[in-house]
């Protein structure tokens, strides 16, 4: 069975080693995972395959003490089996940047959802002290038949509404 493991805590060396030691000793296999420093906190989300007969509460218990020693907030929850498949749409990259203000993520993601566009990757970052600039980069998949121009226009309209800049481009991958 697959479980989703999350852990967040003030960044310091040893977090990954500690969590992966517990998972290894438990017989879990880390499949897809993402880990990054977010605002000084190390955050990880892992999809872990557990061996037959073991379950999420057991793993959560096993994690409690070593994770607690690092002041990590951890969760372990079972997840439904997802069917692997390639994205059928066309990949695009959306960049949104400008002065930080409430609603950027909401407005952009809402417009994408309304157009059936699936977000496959999203990161936001605030850069700079004096005049902080908010940067959001998304990788999205347009469904087959989607009107890229219309989606681009809708996103740019949000940009002028919020006073931020928006770019919408096909993802540039050079397959060699």
């Amino acid at each position, binding site marked *: 069975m697959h479980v989703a493991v999350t852990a967040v805590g003030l*960044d310091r060396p040893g977090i990954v080693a500690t969590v992966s030691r517990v998972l290894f000793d438990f017989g879990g296999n880390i499949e897809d995972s993402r880990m990054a*420093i977010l*605002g000084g906190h190390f955050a990880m989300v892992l999809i872990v395959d557990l061996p037959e007969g073991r379950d999420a509460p057991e793993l959560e218990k096993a994690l409690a003490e070593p994770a607690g020693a690092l002041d990590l907030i951890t969760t372990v929850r079972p997840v439904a089996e997802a069917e692997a498949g390639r994205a059928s749409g066309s990949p695009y990259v959306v960049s949104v940047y400008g002065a930080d203000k409430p609603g950027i993520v909401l407005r952009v993601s809402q417009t994408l959802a309304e157009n059936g566009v699936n977000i496959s990757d999203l990161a936001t970052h605030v850069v700079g002290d004096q005049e902080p600039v908010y940067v959001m980069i998304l990788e999205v998949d347009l469904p087959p038949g989607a009107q890229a121009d219309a989606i681009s226009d809708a996103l740019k309209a949000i940009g002028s509404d919020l006073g931020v800049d928006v770019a919408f481009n096909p*993802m*540039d991958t050079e*397959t060699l």
Partner: protein
Amino acid sequence: VAVRPVLHYPAGVLKATASPVEPGPEAEALCADLVDTMRASPACVGLAAPQIGESARAFCMDVSGHPKASSCAGLVVLLNPVIVSHDGSAVTREGCMSLPDFTGNVRRATTVTVRGTGPDGTELEISADAFEARALQHEIDHLDGLLFLDRVSSLTADLFPRQRYR
């Protein structure tokens, strides 16, 4: 002359250092297969011998009509290629026929000059920039058992600066 299957990682030949090739009829046959196999996939602009299972220092490339191409030498078939000079550097997201479903940001020189011979032994030198330069470097990497994953320069866009907190 045949379209051959394009091998996917973890085929061992993709990680091996390929052997030098003698120009001649055998090399010509191998290169004909390379070109046929490249032409069989519309998106394919280059193919190295290890990708069709031959651990030989040979590749073909043709960036004609590619929107990112600046220099374009047309169809290039080279044996024993060596990069004799390179300049500049740029990061672009790359993918590879032998590693489907993966892409990564790879830093490569923006101009290169490559020397080698044709399948008949004719000495050739090609100077390329932009997309063609990237393609040359990607194909020559295949001859040294290097995949783009060996050269990944960053996980995502080289955009978010690394920050120290505290």
